[in-house]
């Protein structure tokens, strides 16, 4: 697990109120948006702001679409590519 992966699991744990260790079970195929009813638009907006702060990236609204939150793997790939470009 690299730093981005670890930090992203921690952020999702905070936003979803998961118990410690629960996010460790996420795989690349774990569904996020849609399967997690907790994620309303305000929670997603908070998640994006938190990702910017903790991962040191800037996210443009144009980059946000449904596919980004489809699975944990797609969100992680996005976070990694943003950090590489940062």
């Amino acid at each position, binding site marked *: 697990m690299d730093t981005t992966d670890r930090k992203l699991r921690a952020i999702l*744990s*905070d*936003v*979803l*109120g*998961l118990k410690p260790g629960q996010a460790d079970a996420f795989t690349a195929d774990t569904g996020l948006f849609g399967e997690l009813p*907790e*994620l*309303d*638009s*305000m*929670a*997603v*907006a*908070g*998640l*994006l*702001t*938190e990702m910017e*702060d903790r991962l040191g990236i800037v996210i443009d*609204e144009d980059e*946000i679409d449904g596919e980004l939150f489809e699975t944990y793997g797609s969100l992680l790939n996005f976070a990694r590519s943003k950090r590489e470009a940062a």
Partner: protein
Amino acid sequence: MKAESYPCPLPGGAAASEYALTFDAGRKHRVLIAPALFDEAHKLRRLAVEVMRRLDGSGIDSMLPDLPGCNESEQDLALIEPEDWRMALDAAARHFGATRVLAIRGGGLVLPEKLGGWHYAPVKGASLLRTMLRARILSAREAGREESVDDLMEQGLQLGLELAGFSLSGEMLRQMNTLVPGKKAGITALEHELVGGAPLWLRAEPDEDAEQADALAAVVAVGVGA
């Protein structure tokens, strides 16, 4: 726990009676709680009240005032600016004879003038606005409408804007966008890491956390020397 009120100055020189939740037994140490703002006010209110219960148990009085335009207030939020909130907290501090302030998140952007104390989980006004702007853009997109942060802000600065159900004036947007937690004499910043656990303002639904309330109340109780 009591429901009280305080005389709150309004823009234009009028005054209103605003509600305040208090644990007041006329004790020596009296902590004014500066509540979190906007959507975060709902998510952090239970934490605030749980901290107040613990302070009460430690022999410390505390007061949680409503800011004009927020919570039970009958004032129109669209006519309120951040400076009005600062004046409201000043008035509440005087009315209740507060000796310290505990500000929560955005509440620390409108601190009363003279009180020392603590600012839990400081945040920039611009970050609060950005999160609400994003939530609005995401909702609009689900409804098939495209909006952008820049367009919304430009329109909002002129005509006001509704964000997360709050009607914000152009002046509120302009000022809030520039407010940053300052290094104010006598105010100690308490980063969330010190309190631990998952930050309650990030959650979709309001919740409470006994350990976080314990930690915050302990900092205040030790700080006032009660």
